[in-house]
Every structure is written in C-alpha cells, then in structure tokens.
C-alpha cells in the first residue's frame, strides 16, 4: 500500500514533507526547466525577499569546507516588486506550493513585505527569516533574543493571514525559549536551522576566503547540530516543526522527522545533486513502506528515548 505522504503545516496541506530551502532553489525556474516538475515537491521556499532589491556581498561568496560549505551571498534578491511581477507568476503557473521567505532589517520592513505578500495570490505561506547571519546590519538581534523575535513575529502575524513559519537562527542560545516566543507571538510553524555563522582563512594569502569575512555554514557538517535543535524545538512547542540542515538523503530526512519535524527542507543538497529532493521523496516513501508506516506523519517525533 502506498503510504500517505501528506503533512499539514498551519492551514496548509503539503502533498509530501519535502520542501526546498530558501537560497538554494532560486525562484524555482532553473529546477523546473531543467530537472523536474516542482509541483511534485511538498513546497518551494523562495530566496529571501526584502522590500528593496539587494545586490548582496562582493566575491568570493562561497567556499567549500569539510562536509559542508560557507556562503556569504548577502541575502541578494530581486526585491519585493520584482518578485511579484517577474518571479511569482512563473511559480504560480507551475502549480507549486509557494512559501515566500522574507527578511527585514526592521520590524516595519518585515510587516510591509508580509502585508504586500498577503494580497499576492499564489503565496501560500510565509517563512520569516529572523537569522540573516550574513548581513551586518540586519536581523541578528531578532534571531538571538526571544523578545525581539516575538515583536517581529507579531508584526508579521498581523500583516499576513495565511500560514506563517518562523525560521530560527542556530545562534539563539536557547532554542526552546526562542521557539516558545515565536509560538506565542502567533507563528503557525517553526523552521530550523539557518546556516551557522562561520569563517574560512587562506593561509597562503593570509586573508579571509570570503569577501564578507564570515559566512554561513551549511551541509552535512551541521546536521548533528540541526537535529539536536529540531529535537529541542519539538519538545518545546505544539506547532509543527520543519527540520533543515545537512539533509542529503531520505535517511537524513527520516532522522529529522523522528526528532520531531513534520516536514523537512533540502538546501545545499540541491547543489550537489539537483535531483536530491525527488530522490528524497521517493526514499521516504520506501522507508514508510518497509517499516509499515501508513501515514508519514507517524514518523514525527517517533524517536524512542529511554528515560
């Protein structure tokens, strides 16, 4: 029997728990044109959208590390207007479930972007990025202090009527406190983790490799940290958790679900294997079949912890 892969995030029902992560999938065009029908995904999260376009950081912006990579793209994006006029219509036509990732350097910017996306057809949910580790002026305080996070989330909650996901920074010293603050402020779901601020140095030139000096670490290297944070978040709140961080295959995805995630996001894996998300959907289905799981939701939080 085919297992039921559907999952619910807020008022949104996804056909499967596999979502592509912000900043690793553009606005969906490249994948839809060259690799697969992106409507087959649980959902697509867009590159982070700000009120005004952002050029991003200077080069180099990316560098490989042990089992991972650093990026300091600088939240480059086309800006809200261009997203609405150029990117969203394409996405909408594909039939994909679209989650708009939004960023802001002020509460007002978050609220304004959210308000305008509320009236945009085709945006089924928001993912509010409160991390922004690469942008010096932006967002950092929201990501590490539960009270500031709550203020930002409340503002977006007021401005947006559909599903609101808040994406946490791994820099928060207490993930449970942060998750609870966001839940209380009205988030429908929590996604985590964003990249971990990190750095690489070239001993030949004695310079930082990235023009921005620091960048965000992603990939398998961070998976164990992400898994722990998902487990902590799931234990702290009632709303669904979306697990992110170093997921390369179906086993990784299942680990996050066992730890408490209702859905998962595929980030860096999209770069290494463009078909990764499709392979993972299939792999989760196989795992369910082999383990006699009829609804994928049964996996969520099914970790057996001796106590």
């Amino acid at each position, binding site marked *: 029997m085919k297992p039921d892969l559907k999952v619910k995030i807020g008022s949104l029902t996804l056909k499967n728990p596999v979502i592509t992560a912000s*900043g*690793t*999938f*553009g606005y969906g065009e*490249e*994948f839809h044109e*060259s*690799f697969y029908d992106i409507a087959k995904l649980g959902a697509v999260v867009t*590159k982070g959208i700000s009120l005004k376009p952002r*050029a*991003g950081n200077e*080069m*180099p*912006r*990316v*560098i*490989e*590390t*042990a*089992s*991972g*990579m650093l*990026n300091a*793209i600088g939240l*480059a994006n086309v800006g809200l207007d261009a997203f609405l006029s150029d990117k969203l219509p394409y996405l909408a036509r594909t039939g994909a479930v679209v989650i708009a990732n939004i960023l802001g350097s002020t509460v007002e910017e978050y609220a304004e972007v959210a308000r305008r996306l509320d009236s945009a057809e085709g945006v089924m949910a928001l993912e509010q990025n409160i991390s922004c580790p690469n942008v010096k002026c932006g967002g950092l305080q929201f990501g590490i202090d539960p009270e500031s996070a709550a203020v930002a989330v409340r503002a977006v909650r007021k401005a947006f009527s559909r599903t609101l996901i808040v994406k946490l920074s791994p820099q928060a010293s207490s993930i449970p406190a942060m998750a609870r603050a966001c839940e209380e402020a009205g988030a429908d779901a929590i996604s985590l983790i964003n990249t971990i601020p990190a750095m690489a140095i070239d001993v030949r030139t004695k310079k930082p490799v990235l023009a921005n000096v620091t960048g965000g670490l992603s*990939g*398998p290297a961070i998976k164990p940290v992400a898994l722990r944070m998902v487990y902590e978040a799931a234990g702290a709140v009632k709303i669904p958790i979306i697990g992110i961080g170093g997921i390369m295959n179906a086993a990784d995805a299942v680990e996050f679900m066992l730890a408490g995630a209702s859905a998962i996001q595929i980030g*860096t894996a*999209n*770069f*290494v*294997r*463009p*078909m990764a998300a499709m392979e993972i959907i299939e792999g989760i289905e196989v795992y369910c079949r082999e383990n006699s799981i009829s609804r994928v939701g049964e996996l969520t939080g099914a970790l057996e912890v001796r106590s």
Partner: protein
Amino acid sequence: MNDCATKIELIEALSNDAYRIRFAVDWKAFDPGQFVMMGIPGNVVFLRRPFGIARFSNGVAEICCKVVGRGTRALSDAKVGTRIDVLGPCGRGFRFPQKEEPAILVAGGYGIGPIFGLCEALLAQGRRCILYYGARETSHLLYLDELAKIGANVKCSTEDGSHGARGMIAELLEKDLDNIEKPSLFACGPHGLSKAVAEISRRRGVPAQVSMESYMACGIGVCLGCACKDADGNFVRTCREGPVFDVRELQWDSSPL
C-alpha cells in the same frame, strides 16, 4: 541540461598536470564555451567542480582537467570505469561570429579546452579562424596534435620562448591584429588574459567574448555564489548569464577571484 550518472571512458595525461577525461553523456549537443559540473569520485571534496567542455561527439564528452587542488587531483587519479555524475551542459557559450568576420580565438593554459571546442565547430562550418595559444612552457601547450588534425591555424607563444613566440599570447595577438580585417575575439584563459583581451577590444573597438571563471557551488544559477559584476555594477551569474560574456557586458576594474 541534465544530470547523468556515467562512467569515465578514457583518462589520459596531456602533460604532467593536465588530463583528458572522456565520458558518455545523454545530451545531444553543446555550445562551445558551455561547461559541466563534475561530481568528484571518492569523498575528498563536497561540491562539484566546473570544467569547460572541450569536445563532444557521438554522445561522448571530453574535458581537459588541470590539477590545482584536491578535487582536480582526485578526478585525475580516477580510473577508467569510475562512476561519476556529470551535470551539463551548463551556462551560455560563445555566440558565433558574423559569417564574414574572421574569428580570432585566444586561449591560455587549460583555457584551450573550450576554445578547442569552438575551433572545431567553426572549422566544421568552414569558417575562417586563427587560434592564438599561450602557455608558460612547451609542455603546457595542450591539444596541439588534435589542433593540427582538424587543420587549425595555431600561433603559439610561451613565456620562456621554448615554443613559438616568447612572451604573453596577448602581446603576440595585439601585434598581428593590425593585419586582420574585422576580427572578432573569443578568449578563454586566466583572468589576466581575459582582462588583456577586454582591453584590446576596448582600445581597438573590436568585438570580444571571454569565458570567465568563478568559484561555483551549484553551476545552475540558484546559489548566487558565482556572481561577477556587469558593466552597470550589478551582479550577474557566471554560471548562467555566463561563463561567456561579451566584454562590454562586464566591469573590468573589479578584482578577480
């Protein structure tokens, strides 16, 4: 563009640090200047590595890989039969010249890969072309046999003068350009060469296209890691809007990779 799981069919040293590598792919054609993102065998590196497509025929593609670090080392050490993932053809290649204009190809080092592909395609169409090809020393001049075989008109330079003219290939090119009518330039090589070609193009008002390099994470336009600055100071993606750009599209004062 697609990602195919294939196998190395041939691997051959071209010099002490450059290798010809062939593998079957399931695409049907490519534009010279386009590249592939190669999965590196073993687990030594995490991301794929970009390589210009040097040749493609009967479903078999060829790259020329120069060993510069761990990934290129592991790829070059692989054996025939090793499984590899090849994503391609990626990016935008060279736009062909107007029929009547002579194509002046310029290659530096392993930049010969894509330029060989372009040369072969132009000659197959019966177009006029001259290839200026420079390297540090004779042993770094690759594909000379193949170039002779396809009847290419090749002018070489080496920095040590051990083969062809002594000096940088851009200097040799610049000297000859006075005698060529309506030339258009097509270059692939180190950043310095691209810059020199851009400068020649600007000074002489001759059209020029260059293939640019950038550290790439995805190769398909989604990570924004490979950006370079266009003439207006905006970022464009080397892997998508490039790697081949008209020199007028780009800003040339910004620092290289």
